[in-house]
């Protein structure tokens, strides 16, 4: 019911489609991320290599979008789990509020990590 009470004109289809699109984007990004981070014991995650990457604006754009897409996919998934339970309207609004606040604050925190360079 939580879902029906919130924006009942919304079929949920856009969220469903975005979940698949962001999922496919994340598969490509994660394969690259894993190769970069695990190719050698320190490849990718020493401060020197991180600093070097962050001098390139394209890498910054990549990480900023990685943060946004990753958090969106994760929290849209959490909201999908919540929607499967029959809960009171006030509770679903509260949970959605927590999800939005958590998503925005962690995205800002992730942006601060990237933009400190």
């Amino acid at each position, binding site marked *: 019911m939580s879902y029906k009470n919130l924006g009942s004109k919304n079929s949920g289809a856009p969220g469903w489609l975005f979940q698949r699109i962001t999922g496919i984007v994340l*598969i490509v990004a994660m394969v690259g991320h*894993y190769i970069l981070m*695990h190719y050698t014991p320190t490849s990718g995650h*020493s401060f020197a290599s991180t600093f070097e990457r962050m001098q390139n604006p394209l890498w910054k754009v990549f990480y900023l979008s990685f943060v946004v897409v990753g958090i969106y996919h*994760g929290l849209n998934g959490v909201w999908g*789990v919540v929607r499967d339970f029959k809960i009171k309207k006030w509770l679903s609004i509260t949970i959605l509020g927590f999800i939005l606040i958590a998503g925005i604050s962690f995205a800002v925190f992730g942006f601060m*990590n990237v933009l400190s360079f």
Partner: protein
Amino acid sequence: MSMYQSSWTKVMMRYHRFAGSWAWILHRISGLALTAYIFMHIIALSNLQKWKSDKGVAFDEEMALFSRPFFLVIEWLLFAFVLYHTLNGIRIVLVDFANGARYHKQLHYAVLAIGVVAFLVMGYVIFSHQVNKTVAMLF
């Protein structure tokens, strides 16, 4: 009451025998865990923000901690979650967009088979680094 509960249990057990429902449950558990992880990951990387005052020392120390064998095992388990969620995600996309509903069970077993192989390969990649480092330290 007890009759009701025993039949409820029976229904649940029967329900869970299907490949699709196991895939669904595992996808949710791994998804929730990975969402928790991405928050932790962002907090852990916040040491990068100190680089102007400490030249990245705090970050490198943290990464050295995460390269210890205990964390390598944790990292390997994390990869199991990432791997299952990735492979089953591909299965979901095929079911939704490529008529995969007709062969979703075969896809589920393919996911498990590919997953086990990829998990072992990743274990080799992670721990061979550690073996090489230990050998290099000894000689």
